[in-house]
């Protein structure tokens, strides 16, 4: 019988790769009987959804959390400098 501690580790592994049959069975049995571990696994799944949504939220319009004006200026200048430099300049003569 797996301990709860071992179960949390195995449950994490199961999110990244297919476990061998015996481990999978042990895990399933434990989760059927243990409310705490079942809840833990459920919360790891929710965490996965949060992470996906968190990443997707980069596209949301946000009042803060973007580049500040100074940083934008720096980026604009860097791009402009490169745009205006003739293509030959990209190779360092030194």
């Amino acid at each position, binding site marked *: 019988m797996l301990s*709860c501690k071992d179960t949390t580790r195995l449950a*994490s592994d199961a999110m990244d790769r297919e476990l061998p049959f015996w481990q999978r069975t042990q895990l399933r049995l434990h989760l059927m009987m243990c409310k705490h571990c079942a809840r833990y696994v459920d919360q790891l799944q929710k965490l996965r959804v949060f992470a996906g949504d968190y990443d997707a939220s*980069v596209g949301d319009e946000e009042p803060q959390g973007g580049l500040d004006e100074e940083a934008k200026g720096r980026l604009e200048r860097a791009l402009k400098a490169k745009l205006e430099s003739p293509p030959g300049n990209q190779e360092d003569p030194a």
Partner: protein
Amino acid sequence: MTETCLLEPEHWVERHGDVLFRYALRRLGDAHQAENVVQEALLAALEGQGRFSGRSTERTWLVGILKHKVLDIFRRGRRAGEVEDIETAADQALDDAFDGRGHWVSGPARWSQPDKAMESRQFLQVLTLCLEGLTQVQAQAFTLREMDGLQTEEICKVLGVSTTHLGVLLHRARGRLRSCLEGRWFAGAEVG
């Protein structure tokens, strides 16, 4: 030049700057480093304009370039042995949740309204804070797996760790994030 979708580098910063910056910031956790890598990506994009096929949007194309630049940073950040040093010791905070026989001391709390959490801007901030609480390599492993959806073999290559080691990193990252979110956000939930 018959494509409907042309690149307009003079508008990149204004149109996509914030999105690119947030993308980098979520992965690097450092505003200065995020700005630098955005600049690096934009300059690389400028040089590689010829490779833009017009099949994706300008933004998707730029994010794709940025993604590679971020992976380069992850790769560069790993010196041999560094990961070993940080991660071979036991994780006391996680171990404390269990007694000597590996049973839960009190077990995870029930989360109230987890489906509503992402609607809240504060929750995003809490998530950011919790990610910052991980070790750098734990955060990188978690990001590559759960945000970028990479397979374990690819992540092992980027971070220079073994499969077993990655398993430990992800287990710890998830365990810590779970308990951090519980403590900082879902704490109002009743236990039982």
